[in-house]
């Protein structure tokens, strides 16, 4: 019925443009012609190094992380049947932060920090799910409440570690908490996770549309509700864990991007999920360009930019939707 292709092609073009911008802009600007030369294998050695070893991996990581967060947010919104849910609403980023900060306090290297963040995110996921599952009754409200309480527990631990941590480690810890792509080494895991998630989620899109109308209605229309809900929960958690592990806890992408897309494109998950992957990726790529250039040569944590863009935008959307 609705044509899915045109909006997705437009968003794909925007994402490609954002990538090109991110690779071209910096302390040494690379004009489009020089960029093309690099991509086709010629070009100056300095440009080669800048593009292929520094800027392209970081830009691709931003694209992947933004896409992961937006898709995870869109999935959480369907799972909780709440258009204001985000990937962190169930305490996942708190668990990751505790893992990462503990690893930093112990003086571990960046690979181990990432590993500890991933472990913390999954631990938090299991904790929330196990506690919310309880004696069997499993409702979005109960899941949400459990997640919020677990998140405040993590946040107390984070504050504790910041309070006792040595002063020289504080900036690194704060940057991690705000979300920072400077540590993103390899984008390939995140990109692979994003591609896999979209490939699996799009065929399930119509089932998700039905699930958004409530579990009883969905079951009456032939959806296996419980396996689908567990699947969404696990998928959204793993996607968020990969994103947080790659770039720290970047806020607002997972909340604002799906919400804006729903306002413009409607609520067909078959369209929203791939659109969220592209739009989230494009948004975070552009935000990272701003983070690198606004006060160059200093860098801002990209989470500051997404929050500064996201907070007013979201408040405006909320205000408008009430009227």
């Amino acid at each position, binding site marked *: *019925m609705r044509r899915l292709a045109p909006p997705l092609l437009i968003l794909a073009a925007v994402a490609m443009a954002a990538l090109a911008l991110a690779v071209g802009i910096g302390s040494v600007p690379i004009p489009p012609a020089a960029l093309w030369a690099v991509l086709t294998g010629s070009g100056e050695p300095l440009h080669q190094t800048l593009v292929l070893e520094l800027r392209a991996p970081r830009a691709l990581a931003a694209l992947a992380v933004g896409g992961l967060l937006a898709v995870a947010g869109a999935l959480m*919104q*369907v799972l909780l*049947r*709440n*258009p204001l849910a985000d990937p962190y609403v169930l305490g996942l980023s708190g668990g990751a932060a505790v893992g990462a900060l503990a690893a930093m306090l112990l003086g571990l290297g960046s690979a181990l920090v990432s590993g500890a963040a991933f472990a913390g995110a999954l631990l938090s996921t299991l904790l929330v799910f196990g506690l919310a599952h309880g004696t069997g009754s499993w409702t979005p409200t109960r899941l949400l409440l459990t997640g919020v309480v677990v998140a405040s527990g993590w946040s107390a631990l984070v504050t504790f570690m910041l309070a006792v941590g040595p002063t020289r480690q504080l900036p690194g810890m704060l940057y991690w908490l705000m979300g920072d792509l400077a540590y993103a080494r390899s984008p390939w895991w995140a990109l692979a996770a994003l591609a896999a998630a979209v490939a699996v989620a799009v*065929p*399930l899109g*119509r*089932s998700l*549309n*039905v699930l*958004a*109308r*409530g579990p*009883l*209605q969905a*079951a*009456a*229309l*032939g*959806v*296996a509700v419980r396996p689908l809900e567990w699947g969404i929960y696990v998928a959204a958690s793993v996607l968020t864990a990969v994103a947080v592990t790659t770039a720290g806890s970047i806020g607002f992408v997972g909340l604002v991007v799906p919400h804006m897309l*729903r306002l413009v494109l*409607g*609520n*067909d998950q*078959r369209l929203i999920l791939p659109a969220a992957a592209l739009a989230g990726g494009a948004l975070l790529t552009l935000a990272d360009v701003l983070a690198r250039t606004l006060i160059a040569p200093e860098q801002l944590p990209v989470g500051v930019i997404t929050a500064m863009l996201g907070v007013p935008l979201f408040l405006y959307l909320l205000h408008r939707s009430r009227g």
Partner: protein
Amino acid sequence: MTGDGLAAEALVIDIPGRPDGQPLDLAVRPGQVWGVLGPNGAGKTTLLHTLAGLRPARSGAASLAGRPLPYWRRKALARRLGVVFQERHDGFPATVLETALIGRHPYLAPWDMETAADVAIAREALERLGLAGLEERLVGTLSGGERQRLSVATVLAQEPAFWLADEPTNHLDLRHQVAVMDLLAAQAAAGCGVLLCLHDINLAARWCTHILLLYPDGKACWGPTDAMLATEALEALYGQPLVAAEAGGARVFVPAGGGVSPPPGGG
């Protein structure tokens, strides 16, 4: 046996804290319209959900075509059994046409988009419920009665062989109550089995072929409409004195007594 119908076999619905009461042994067969009557809290909705396979029975079984519901694949069941719910959740905004189209979900494979034929079925269902012209409206902007008719239209698009409808005339004005009851009777005449939870005895008397009376303590009795709609039985069911009268060749029941007198026996 109950081979060709939607059957309750020694079925006890699971309402926490209530004794088992009378197990149900009945079958809704093609062509029949069953009306379930009972006061608030008697378990009408629970029974309907149990017969739809959405809720486990305490004992006994609900079965379709001789096979217990848990042995059906959910999607295969959804092609044969449609449910009009009393409560609706509209988590995300959707249009009227999109909502009617989800009735086609059981017929589509994961990769399929809705075809032109599916859209035609959904549009026709909307038209039969008097919702033509509202296709692009957001569901949230509809009136209560229009939403109720949209729920019926969604199940009509689902093309089930058995209808389970929980108070399908809720929120409807008189004309649309008659239209919806006519539509359900027409479905039965075309070979469907229909079971409705109702609060209006007179709708049940006029359109149902069979009646099931559910009492709050778990007792139940059922049979053909003429045998079941006795004034004393209905008074005991609702704890409310009734007056039966003849109107236009049909029996009608109205509450006895004035609105200001205290209920007899302390209610």
